[in-house]
């Protein structure tokens, strides 16, 4: 493999990893507070792709982006209200089944409404401008994804560490019950968490699909699962960890495909998960938690 080819692969991997990182944050935030794998998160990401297609059909792109993000955020919050809130005191298995159910519903709904035929993702000319540096070539969105990811994560960390809402979120993730006792409006915190997670999934969706150009009802499943693995890898509940996990999985996956092992590119992600859970269950940067009786 020549050095240019290798660099080109790295560029692809980093860009993919950036999008993964943004989605992984949604998992990590929700898991941190509710101890729930939000199986529907990947499908929210997929729905955001469809929203963008329809928004862009009738609005100029800056407005379309705003509309998409708003609808996606609202959808995430509504899903939490309808499908997770009623089960808050139920066993964890029920709420997880509910999450799988929402995912199943969103996929089938998308198949029903938009058919299984892949929809072309509209181009935003500015984002698709192609840059060539020597032998390397990439569109603006490829270059922009990792940068934007890092900026957004920095902002999010600022929000979590410096604002009152952020403090409430941290309290809730440390100890749900005590946070409640301390007078924190836990439902509001959860709403904010889902809103942030969905918003980032929406942004991730725009970046991911602009680069990959087609949406199907099943586009969200695999990226969703991979991003959950990324979140576990980085230490669930840890925001920078999730992003680093996202980058790691994106790059390794790309290199595996590049080396001709595309059969195992998905399997690798899950193998990583199993190995990680056995060796260091708290992830790379996770805090040690004590399981209470």
């Amino acid at each position, binding site marked *: 493999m020549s050095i240019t080819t290798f660099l080109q692969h790295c560029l692809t991997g980093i860009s993919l990893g950036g999008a993964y990182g943004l989605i992984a944050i949604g998992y990590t935030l929700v898991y941190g507070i509710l101890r729930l794998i939000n199986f529907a998160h990947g499908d929210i990401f997929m729905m955001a792709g469809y929203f963008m297609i329809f928004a862009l059909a009738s609005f100029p792109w800056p407005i379309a982006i705003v509309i998409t993000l708003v609808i996606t955020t609202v959808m995430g919050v509504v899903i939490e209200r309808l499908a997770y809130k009623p089960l808050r005191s139920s066993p964890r298995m029920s709420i997880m089944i509910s999450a799988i159910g929402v995912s199943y519903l969103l996929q089938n709904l998308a198949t029903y409404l938009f058919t299984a035929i892949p929809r072309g993702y509209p181009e935003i000319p500015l984002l698709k401008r192609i840059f060539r540096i020597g032998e390397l070539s990439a569109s603006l969105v490829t270059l922009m994804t990792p940068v934007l990811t890092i900026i957004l994560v920095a902002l999010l960390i600022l929000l979590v560490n410096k604002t009152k809402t952020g403090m409430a979120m941290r309290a809730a993730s440390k100890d749900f019950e005590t946070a409640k006792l301390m007078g924190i409006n836990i439902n509001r915190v959860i709403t904010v968490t889902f809103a942030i997670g969905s918003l980032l999934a929406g942004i991730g969706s725009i970046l991911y699909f602009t680069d990959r*150009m087609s949406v199907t009802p099943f586009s969200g499943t695999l990226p969703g699962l991979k991003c959950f693995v990324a979140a576990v890898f980085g230490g669930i509940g840890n925001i920078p960890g999730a992003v680093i996990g996202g980058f790691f999985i994106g790059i390794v996956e790309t290199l595996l495909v590049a080396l001709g092992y595309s059969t195992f590119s998905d399997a690798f992600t899950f193998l990583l998960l199993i190995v990680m859970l056995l060796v260091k269950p708290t992830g790379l940067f996770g805090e040690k938690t004590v399981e209470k009786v």
Partner: protein
Amino acid sequence: MKRIVVFVLIALLACQFLFAGGKAESAGGEKEIVIGVFEPQTGENGGGGFQEVLGIRYANKVYPTVTVGGETYKVRLVEADNKSDKTEAVTAAQSLISSGASVIIGSYGSGVSIAAGDIFLDNQVPAIGASCTNPQVTFGNDYYFRVCFLDPFQGTVMANYAWQEGAKKAAVITQLGDDYSSGLGNFFKRAFLQLGGNVVSEQQFQTNTTDFKSILTNIKAANPDVIFAPSSIATAPLIIKQARELGITAKIMAGDTWENSSIIENAGASAEGVVLSTFFDDADPATEEAAKFITGFKSYLVENKQPDIIPAVSALGYDAYLVALEAIKAANSTKGPAIRDALVDVSVEGVTGKIVFDENGDADKDLAFIKVIKDGQFKFLKTVSVL
């Protein structure tokens, strides 16, 4: 609460019988014969399957009746969605058999056709494949016929074409776990190597992959003259666009699945210059039937809110229907075995040319149309035949 559930289920059941009954009676005493449409309308191949269904529906609209034993039978289409999934295919096929289908048309995608083949055989209902190109479909199955050419032929055609265009180095991209893609890719490779060419890069991707940049980067490094990428229409625009984005200028080629306007729609300017082989060309009607079909079907497409470019699979679906009607007429019976025996000797001037079946049940077709995408449209390039 359980009572409610049970009640709802019973109500639904009742609905089913009501509607089923209503449909049968609506024929008003007229005799009817059922043709089963075994096609994917959802799932991975839902797009292509639907276009094939449109062709069959249109054929049914044009020829709604058939004469058997001096009596006019109304032809009723019963559609079953096999969801591009082998598990669903079994029950979908059974549901067609149960609905009393005398002949079955389908399916888009060879995998599901192979899966259902044994059921049609066991129940002695002949099936006519419209666009399933894998050799396994009809091989060793006396009740499966097809009106299109086969993958070994198609692979050879494309390899010959590439060779004639002066290509020496080829790259092949195939989809893992997909018999159409892997099969066609392999046949192309064999033929191309035999011609003296060199396959410089073989890449595979997983189902549902959307990111082809890494395999394309490898291909770029191998610097081929042509890229052969048989795959579903879902992946086609992705491969094309990402290849051009990476600055790959090699000619991209594929098989029949790519003749679908959604590819041009989705890939836009990047699709220019893509070459593919197909079954049918609407600019050059081969038969009188074809000329009639082209004008009629275009307005039918518009009625159904589809772009007015005729997909080859719709033409094949139409032909499969014609063959089915012809066989019913020749057999003078609505029974499966009789129709099968008639199919062996049937000869139909279809939209895609003359259709006669060989001993395997495959249409004797030795002609493929090569098309190129130019100015946002499929333009006929040449016909290639292989002996």
